[in-house]
């Protein structure tokens, strides 16, 4: 490396989890449909006379990626010029500093999905079978600028985007189920000496990758493609503009016959759909309905609950987990008000809840937050010891350590620490230090000074 720099851009399609399709009332559930072609109607089957009527919910669904967006007509993107920050963990681990990278997003817009093709051979003839259950499913398209330089950055970005989409509850964004699809485009830039010049002259070609059904495939395909193109350049060959598909079996990318250049024509506003215009107030209303996103939540958890960066990251990984955590914190705090001395002494702190959730990974679907708090409390009692055991151990130490006892009675403060140490030792390190200290003091008070 060093001689070349990979230039990677992403085009990501995410199927929105609306009840119905983008332009018709057909059920939007292509993955779980029991049979092909059972969710179609005049509109999504492209029958004569079928007219699109946009789904209100699909139009209101959009991630808060961009800073300034304008929505005017359907033929115009819903959002332009946004960005998403990712943490870039440098490959060279000599420094622990994470570099914040801004990946620019060229545009976000809503479109509709196509029917699904399955390739088959029937009576010796190679054919494609078409299922229109997916046709017309609302799709958000996110196109980035070619701002990625490493596979790690791509990985980070995709995970972050997936997390945001799931936070917004707009899609399962599941690559295996096809509700999140990825088309990376890769080219290789030979690095010249003029490193001072910040303007990058992008290569004149790019290779688009298809058939990528998981994060793992994405990684492998991009890595393969970087290697392939680099090797070509090393041999003095020039890679060409091309669409290639990832073959998981062979572990290689293979050229695909590109679809016809259907994008080259029919640029005009859809006359069947009256124009959409949003008032500023409507946009701010929509904005206010956008839930707290992962980064904001993580910050807040660190500030409010004193969680570490690492813990907060894990606890806010999904909205569900984060909500569960906050619910548990609420339960723990509300029981504090009961006035029960014992519970007050056994305060379950947010940190403790977070630790428990991270270490024990409780099944949050099965265990209610209140149950979780009880479990933590019970466990801390079990791990601790009963009050009887504590008093037993104290009795024993008082009996055995007569020297220290007399020192204490003479007023030597260090003797208390010594006795406490002995009790803890007797209890084999178990027990709450605070409780043990109190109980010990109570006992010593009986002896007087």
């Amino acid at each position, binding site marked *: 490396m060093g001689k070349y720099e990979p230039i990677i851009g992403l085009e990501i399609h995410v199927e929105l989890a609306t009840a119905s399709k983008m332009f018709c009332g057909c059920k939007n559930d292509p993955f779980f449909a029991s049979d092909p072609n059972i969710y179609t*109607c*005049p509109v999504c*089957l*492209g*029958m*004569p*006379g*079928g*007219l*699109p*009527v*946009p789904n209100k919910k699909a139009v209101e669904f959009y991630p808060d990626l961009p800073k300034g967006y304008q929505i005017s007509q359907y033929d115009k993107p819903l959002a332009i010029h946004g960005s998403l920050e990712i943490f870039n963990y440098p490959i060279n681990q000599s420094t622990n500093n994470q570099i914040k990278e801004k990946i620019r997003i060229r545009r976000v817009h809503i479109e509709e999905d196509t029917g699904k093709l399955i390739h088959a051979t029937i009576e010796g003839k190679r054919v494609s079978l*078409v299922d*229109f259950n997916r046709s017309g499913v609302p799709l958000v398209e996110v196109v980035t600028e070619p701002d990625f330089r490493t596979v790690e950055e791509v990985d980070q970005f995709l995970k972050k985007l997936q997390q945001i989409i799931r936070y917004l509850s707009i899609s399962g964004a599941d690559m295996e189920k096809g509700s999140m699809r990825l088309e990376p485009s890769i080219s290789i830039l030979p690095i010249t000496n003029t490193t001072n010049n910040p303007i990058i002259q992008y290569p004149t070609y790019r290779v688009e990758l298809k058939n990528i059904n998981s994060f793992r495939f994405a990684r492998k395909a991009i890595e393969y493609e970087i290697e392939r193109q680099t090797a070509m350049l090393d041999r003095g060959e020039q890679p060409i503009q091309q669409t290639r598909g990832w073959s998981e079996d062979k572990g290689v990318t293979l050229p695909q016959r590109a679809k016809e250049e259907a994008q*080259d*024509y*029919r*640029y*005009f506003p859809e*006359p*069947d*759909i*009256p124009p959409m215009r949003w008032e500023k107030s409507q946009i701010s209303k929509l904005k206010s309905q956008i839930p707290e996103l992962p980064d904001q939540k993580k910050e807040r958890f660190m500030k409010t609950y004193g969680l570490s960066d690492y813990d907060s990251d894990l606890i806010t990984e999904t909205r569900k987990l984060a909500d569960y955590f906050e619910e548990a914190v609420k339960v723990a705090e509300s029981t504090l008000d009961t006035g029960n001395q014992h519970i007050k002494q056994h305060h379950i702190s947010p940190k403790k809840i977070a630790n428990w959730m991270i270490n024990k990974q409780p099944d949050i679907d099965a265990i209610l937050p209140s149950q979780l708090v009880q479990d933590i409390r019970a466990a801390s009692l079990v791990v601790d010891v009963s009050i009887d055991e504590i008093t037993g151990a104290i009795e024993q130490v008082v009996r055995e350590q007569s020297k220290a006892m007399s020192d204490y009675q003479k007023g030597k403060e260090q003797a208390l620490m010594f006795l406490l140490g002995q009790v803890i030792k007797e209890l084999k390190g178990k027990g709450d230090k605070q409780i043990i200290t109190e109980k010990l003091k109570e006992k010593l008070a009986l002896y007087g000074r």
Partner: protein
Amino acid sequence: MKLNTLTLTNALALLKKKEISLEELYRDIEKAIEEKNNELNIYLTVDKEAMKKARQAQELPLGGLPIAVKDNFLTIGLPTTASSNVLDGFMPPYESTVTKRLKESGGVVIGKTNMDAWAHGSSTETSDFGPTKNPRNLKHLPGGSSGGSAAAVAADMCIAAIGSETAGSIRQPAAWCGVVGLKPTYGRVSRAGVVAMGSSLDCPGPIGKTVEDCAVLLHVIAGKDEYDGTTSSQTAPRYQKNLKDGVKGMRIGLCYTDHPKLVGTPVDVAMREAGKVFERLGAKVELVKLSKSVKPNTILTPDYAIGLYTIVQRGEVSSNLARYDGIRYGEDRSHFGEEAKRRIALGTFILSKGYADKYYVHAQKVRSLYIQNFKELFETYDVLVSSPSPGFALPIGASAGDPMFGELQDMLVEPSSLAGLPGISIPCFRDPETNLYLGLNIMANHWQEEKMFAVAYTFEQNIRWDP
């Protein structure tokens, strides 16, 4: 008396009074179809079960009356072809909103009528299933694209009919066949389930023997439809109610008679005569002068509308016909006829990268000028009146090979159609030698069909035939 010659309103009244029976009516209609359809080539399909369906609809407002429907409306149980080989044998799995409403009100689709293939034309000669003849004079064209529906009404092969218009496709054949045809305001009637031509222009509408018949039918088919996002949420009035309002005190603008192509023609004469009729009835009639730019109290020349209409319509056609690939239904794209190929290809060019801005966007700006011009004119005039066509029905064969035949025929209705305005064409003159008719096109502002009906009805009741 032959019952097939009855108007819709009269037939309904007689049925109600039990002076005639549905059986008698259908017998005469079916007889007329049997006798004339081979020669005229009006119906592509006739529903043999129509009488049975009519009996079940007797109690409904339209009483089971036989209505002819243009073959671009999807009808369950009757093939729908838009007169194109591409859709030959296509059996719709769903019903158009218009025919659904028609049936729910007791209308019966007696058959599907011939048209220019894909509604591309003004002659019904471009049908892949042969031309329709004008029942008034068999050597002449019925006009189009709703030529079959207009001819069905003129030939008494139905009680009334449904057509569709993009620019002139209802009014011009109605005029040429000597019947009444109405194009409503864009968005008044649902386009759902109608084979689309120009989506920003298409309007389904009624064709009848009288103005009142059209008023009855329009009320049945009009109104908001959840399956067409461009339909208006305004409720459609009962159009029959205001028919007799008269024209007293109305301001009527007479348009396009000073167009160089019309000066001194029979159309020019007929329009001026019509103007005199309105004046006699108490309206104030003024000639609205043609202008080459938007100026107060003048009307923008229709000359620009030809190019504008060509761009908008060809573009929308190429987009609407992109779906026909022979996979889900119909035949593949090699089955498109000459005219469809011509329009799809030109539309594709117009909307291609680099040209869309030049042509389509510029055209839509000129369209705004027409809209602005009409808006101003309707501040002065209650209705505008013109001819729907530059002349009488042309002889069969006239359209052959002319790529702009329809655009020139429909020149006089293109500006108002591009503005989405409603218009009704009623017969205003008959040439006793040829038995061919001229129409009078009455146009109103958006959603003001009622005003238009009142003017049309008054004219219809006061015109003296056979001078």
